[in-house]
């Protein structure tokens, strides 16, 4: 005994075994994922489904139920996305995977490396592409002096906007693409930062000891993130 499903393939009804249904569903899912970004994806998928319906109808002429073997045969005729890639498909040239880029939208973060109070202004400057956070700070100061709204807004942003922690956060904050090269850049910057900090610590160890200790702890948590 086997459970069956009633399905619609390319506008045609089929009764199909449970295991056959699973394999058909998996196949169509793979096909869809493969063509999702192709031009005319919808039409391609529609054509393929229609043709599969035709092939299935030919196979089920003398019986009522589509079996797993039927699905296997039809898939062999249509081919899997792996066949498309090694066969004669007109695809995009295979790019080098090392240069693959993941585009990210710009995100608002607080910048812990350039802050007077909470890093809100420098984060805003990075978000809006303003070179020098000083302008944002001046604007905030003016708003604060003018109507008194500046300070509550600042505090609200301080509380709500997350601080940039990982290299990915920093890139997203600056609106840069997250790829291996850019992450390496960020890591380099951080390492430089740390060595600068260390030499500063050496220079005026006594006066800054307490403050730097906390900062070093911060840097360490940073490194753990990497």
């Amino acid at each position, binding site marked *: 005994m086997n459970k069956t499903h009633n399905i619609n393939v*390319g*506008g*045609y009804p089929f009764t199909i075994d449970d295991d056959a249904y699973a394999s058909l569903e998996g196949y169509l899912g793979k*096909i869809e994922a493969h*063509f999702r970004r*192709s*031009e*005319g994806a919808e*039409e*391609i998928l529609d*054509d*393929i489904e*229609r*043709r599969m*319906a*035709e092939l299935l*109808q*030919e196979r089920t002429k003398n019986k009522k139920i589509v079996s797993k073997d039927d699905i296997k045969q039809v898939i*062999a*005729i*249509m*081919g*899997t*996305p792996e*066949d*498309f890639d*090694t*066969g*004669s*498909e*007109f695809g995009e040239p295979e790019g080098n995977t090392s240069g693959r880029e993941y585009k990210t939208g710009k995100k608002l973060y607080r910048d812990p490396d350039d802050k007077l109070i909470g890093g809100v202004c420098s984060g805003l400057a990075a978000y809006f592409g303003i070179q020098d956070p000083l302008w944002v700070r001046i604007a905030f100061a003016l708003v604060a002096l003018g109507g008194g709204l500046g300070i509550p807004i600042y505090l609200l942003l301080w509380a709500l906007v997350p601080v940039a922690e990982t290299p990915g956060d920093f890139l997203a904050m600056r609106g840069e693409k997250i790829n291996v090269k850019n992450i390496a850049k960020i890591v380099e910057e951080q390492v430089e930062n740390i060595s600068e900090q260390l030499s500063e610590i050496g220079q005026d160890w006594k006066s800054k000891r307490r403050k730097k200790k906390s900062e070093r702890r911060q840097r360490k948590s940073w490194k753990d993130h990497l």
Partner: protein
Amino acid sequence: MKLENTKAQMRKGVLELCILAIISEGEAYPSDIIEKLKENELIVVEGTMYPLLTRLKNAGLLGYQWQESASGPPRKYYHLTDEGTSFLRDLLDTWNQLVNVVTQSTKNLVENE
């Protein structure tokens, strides 16, 4: 450098020409086109055919008509548009030039074998 890759690239290059040529003989159904291409290993599975036909159609080289089928859903039969016909003619010229160049440059190789 993989031989298989180079071979696949060469086949890809002539695939469009062959598909247009087959369709130019008369209205064609994708699986019929595939039967002819399979014989020469130009295409192995049907799935590769549909994106290609859609692309050629969207480029204005092909048109299609729905035809009822006794065995199942209505079928799309493809034909060449005027643009497709002249495109095919251009491709064929290029192909003939290529054949000449390849024959010329491999002449000694073939004679030595």
